C-alpha cells in the first residue's frame, strides 16, 4: 500500500497544488471513499462484529466441510463453557437432554427387564399346576417365553384418566377420561395433585429432581405420575398395570415436551394449544382390559384328569420335541461343511451356532426332514471353507460348470476329470481348477478333447481318400466330382479343427504313377498329378498354405501288370500330419 501510494502520489509542484488535488479527487475519489468505509468497518468493533456475524454461519459451514480443524480448535472452549454451565445450573442441561435421555435409559431398563423375565422363567419352570400347564401350552403354541404368558395373565388394568398438567402452576393443560370416570373437576384435581407432589417433596425433604411416581388405594386404583421438566402426566389406573406402561407414559411425555417445548416454556395460562395433545391422550386410554381367566367349575377329578392328561401330553410332546431335535443334530453333524459349535434351547426356540461352508446343504432342509418347524430354530452361522473331497467336488462343479459328458470327482485333493469335453472347456478348466479351495492337483488324463478326436477322424477319412487318373494324364479322371467334393470338405474341416484346437496340421498330396513307361516321366507325372489336385483345391477357394505336394516312390517294374491293377496305381492319396509330425 505504502509503496503504491508513494509511486502514485509524487510531490506536486506548489503552484498546481489545488488543481492537482481536484484532479486526484476526481480520479481516485470514489475508491478512496470506499477504502475509508472499509477501514471504518474494520476499526469499529461493533460494525466489525456485525459484518462477521453475517459471514460467520457460512464460514463455519465451509470450514466444517473442509476439515475437522474448526471443531478441534473450538473443542476446549466448548468443553469449558459446558462445564461452567453445568456447574452454574445443572437443571438446565438436564432439561435440555431430557427428551434424548429417555430412550437411552428405557433401552437399558428394557434389557434389565428382559434379563429378569429370563430368570423368572427358570424359576417358573420348576412349578407345575393345572393353570401353569395351560399357560405352558399357550406359550408353546405361540412361541413365546412361558414367563411372558404368566405375566400377561396377571395384567388386568384400565387407564381411566390421563391428565397433562403444567408442572410449576399445576394448571391442567389437557385431559382424557373414559366415559364413566370423568373426574369431578379436573382443574382442581390437577392442582391438588401438584400440591400433593409439592407436599411430599417438602414433607420428606427430597430434592427438586426427586418426585413422587405413584400412589395407590385399597380399591385397586393407582395414580402413576410421570414428571418432565415442564409438564407432568398423571394416569389414573384401575387394576395392575404392566411395567411397560410406565415406559409408554414416559415416551408420551417426552414427545409432548419435544412438540410443545416452546409453549410449555412460555405458558401463561392459555391451555388451548394443548388441545392437540387430546387425541394422543385418548388413544392412550384405549388399553384393553384383559379379563381374568374364568375359574374352572369342573369337578376336581375332571380337573385332575385334565391335568394329568395335559401333563402326559406335555411330557410326550417335550420328549418328542427333544427326539426330533436330537435327530436333527445327528443329521446336521453328519452333513459335510457344517460344524455345530453350540446347540441350546432358549424359551420356546432352539438356538444353533456354528460354522457353515456356503456350498454345504441348507440346514433348513434337514430341519424339514427332522420334522421341526423352521421358525422354531434360530441359527447363527459363520462362514468357513471345508477341505472335504466331497465339498471340494461340489465347489469344482459350481465353479467349472462341466458338461454332462464330463465326470468330476475329488480324491484326496486331486480333481479327476473323465469323459469328453470341448477343447475350450478343457482349456478353461485347466485355468480355473487350480484356484478351487480343496483342490491340490488336477488329473485330465481321462478327459478326451472332442475336437482333437474329430480332427483324428478327419485325418483318417482324408488318408483313405483316393483320386484316380487316366494313363499318362495329369488331371483326375472324370466322374470323380463327389470324391473331390468330399476331399475339399475334409481338408476344410481339418484346417478348422486344427485352428480351434491349436494342433498343428500339414496335409501332403501324394502323386502316384504306374510302372509302365519311362521312370523319369512317371516321376514327373506323379508330381503333376499331385499339383493338379492342389490347383483344384485352390480353384475351389481352399486355403492351401498348410497343403504341400509329394510323389510316392515308383513301384518296381516287376509289379503286376493287369490293366485293373495298373489303373489302381494311377492315383493321388493324402497324408495328414498332426502336431509335431507336421513340422518334420
Amino acid at each position, binding site marked *: 500500500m505504502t509503496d503504491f501510494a508513494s509511486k502514485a502520489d509524487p510531490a506536486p509542484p506548489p503552484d498546481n497544488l489545488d488543481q492537482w488535488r481536484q484532479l486526484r479527487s476526481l480520479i481516485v475519489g470514489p475508491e478512496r471513499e470506499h477504502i475509508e468505509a472499509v477501514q471504518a468497518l474494520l476499526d469499529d468493533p461493533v460494525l466489525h462484529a456485525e459484518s462477521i456475524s453475517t459471514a460467520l454461519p457460512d464460514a463455519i459451514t465451509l470450514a466444517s466441510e473442509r476439515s475437522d480443524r474448526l471443531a478441534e480448535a473450538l473443542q476446549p472452549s466448548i468443553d469449558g463453557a459446558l462445564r461452567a454451565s453445568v456447574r452454574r445450573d445443572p437443571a438446565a442441561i438436564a432439561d435440555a437432554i431430557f427428551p434424548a435421555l429417555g430412550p437411552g435409559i428405557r433401552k437399558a431398563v428394557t434389557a434389565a427387564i428382559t434379563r429378569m423375565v429370563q430368570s423368572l422363567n427358570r424359576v417358573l419352570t420348576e412349578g407345575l399346576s393345572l393353570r401353569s400347564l395351560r399357560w405352558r401350552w399357550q406359550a408353546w403354541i405361540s412361541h413365546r417365553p412361558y414367563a411372558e404368558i404368566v405375566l400377561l395373565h396377571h395384567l388386568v388394568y384400565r387407564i381411566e384418566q390421563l391428565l397433562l398438567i403444567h408442572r410449576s402452576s399445576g394448571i391442567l393443560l389437557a385431559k382424557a377420561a373414559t366415559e364413566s370416570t370423568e373426574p369431578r373437576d379436573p382443574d382442581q384435581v390437577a392442582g*391438588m395433585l401438584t400440591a400433593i407432589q409439592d407436599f411430599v417433596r417438602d414433607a420428606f425433604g427430597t430434592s427438586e429432581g426427586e418426585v413422587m411416581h405413584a400412589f395407590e388405594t385399597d380399591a385397586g386404583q393407582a395414580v402413576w405420575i410421570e414428571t418432565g421438566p415442564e409438564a407432568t402426566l398423571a394416569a389414573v389406573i384401575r387394576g395392575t398395570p404392566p411395567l411397560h406402561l410406565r415406559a409408554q407414559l414416559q415416551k408420551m411425555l417426552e414427545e409432548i415436551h419435544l412438540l410443545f417445548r416452546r409453549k410449555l416454556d412460555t405458558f401463561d395460562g392459555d391451555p388451548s394449544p394443548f388441545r392437540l395433545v387430546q387425541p394422543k391422550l385418548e388413544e392412550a386410554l384405549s388399553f384393553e382390559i384383559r379379563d381374568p381367566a374364568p375359574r374352572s367349575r369342573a369337578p376336581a377329578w375332571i380337573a385332575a384328569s385334565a391335568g394329568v392328561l395335559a401333563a402326559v401330553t406335555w411330557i410326550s410332546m417335550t420328549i418328542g420335541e427333544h427326539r426330533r431335535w436330537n435327530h436333527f443334530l445327528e443329521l446336521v453333524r453328519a452333513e459335510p461343511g457344517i460344524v455345530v459349535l453350540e446347540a441350546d434351547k432358549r424359551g420356546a426356540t432352539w438356538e444353533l451356532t456354528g460354522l457353515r461352508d456356503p456350498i454345504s446343504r441348507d440346514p433348513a432342509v434337514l430341519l424339514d426332514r427332522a420334522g421341526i418347524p423352521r421358525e422354531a430354530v434360530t441359527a447363527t452361522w459363520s462362514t468357513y471353507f471345508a477341505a472335504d473331497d466331497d465339498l471340494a467336488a461340489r465347489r469344482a462343479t459350481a465353479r467349472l460348470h462341466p458338461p454332462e459328458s464330463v465326470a468330476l470327482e475329488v480324491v484326496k485333493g486331486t480333481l479327476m476329470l473323465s469323459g469328453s469335453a470341448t477343447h475350450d472347456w478343457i482349456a478353461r478348466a485347466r485355468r480355473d481348477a487350480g484356484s478351487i479351495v480343496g483342490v491340490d492337483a488336477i488329473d485330465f488324463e481321462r478327459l478326451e478333447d472332442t475336437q482333437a478326436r474329430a480332427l483324428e477322424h478327419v485325418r483318417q477319412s482324408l488318408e483313405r481318400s483316393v483320386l484316380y487318373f487316366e494313363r499318362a494324364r495329369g488331371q483326375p479322371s472324370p466322374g470323380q466330382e463327389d470324391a473331390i467334393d468330399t476331399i475339399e470338405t475334409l481338408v476344410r474341416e481339418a484346417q478348422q479343427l486344427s485352428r480351434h484346437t491349436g494342433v498343428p496340421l500339414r496335409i501332403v498330396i501324394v502323386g502316384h504313377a504306374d510302372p509302365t513307361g519311362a521312370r523319369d516321366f512317371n516321376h514327373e507325372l506323379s508330381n503333376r498329378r499331385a499339383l493338379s489336385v492342389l490347383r483344384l483345391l485352390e480353384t475351389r477357394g481352399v486355403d492351401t498354405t498348410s497343403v504341400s505336394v509329394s510323389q510316392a516312390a515308383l513301384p518296381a517294374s516287376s509289379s503286376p501288370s493287369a490293366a485293373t491293377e495298373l489303373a489302381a496305381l494311377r492315383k493321388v492319396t493324402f497324408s495328414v500330419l498332426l502336431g509335431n509330425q507336421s513340422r518334420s
Partner: protein
Amino acid sequence: MIKKKICLIGAFAAGKTSLVQRHVHSIFSARYYTTVGVRIEKKQLQIDEQDISLILWDLHGEDDFQSVQMSYLKGASGLLFVVDGTRRGTVEIAAKLRDRARSAVGPVPTVIAVNKVDLDRLWEIRARDLDTLAEDDTPLFFTSAKTGESVDPAFRELAKLTLNRP
C-alpha cells in the same frame, strides 16, 4: 378459557376460606388444610368478554404452629394476601409472607384484602399499619366475607392484573 393460578395467603383464621366460600367451589374438604396445607378451589370470571378460570390455592394460614409452604407458590400468576381487620398482628404476618413470596416467585400481581370489615366495632387496624404492607401500586380492598362486600371486585382486580401481564 384462560386459567390462572392464584394463591390466597394470610395469617391463620384471617378469613381466607370464608372470603371465597360464597363464590367459589371446591371438591375438597377442609381437612386438606390441616393435612396437606392447601386446598384447591376454582372461581370463574369474565373480564372484557374473556372467560378466565382462577385456580385458587387456598394455603393454610400462617401461625405459631404452621408456616406457609412456599413451594405451593411456584407458578402462581397472582397472589391475594388476606389480613384480618380485627387483628393487627395479621398485617405483620402478611408483610412477612409477602417478602418470602417475592423471594420465592418474584414480582407477581398482588392484591390485598383487609377482611371482616363488617366487624367495625372490633376493628384494630389503622391506615398507617397498612403502609408497611400496601405499596403504591398494590390494590387494597376492604372486604367482608359475611356480606360479600368488595370480595368480587378484589378477585376481578387480581384477574385483570394477571391478564395484563405479558
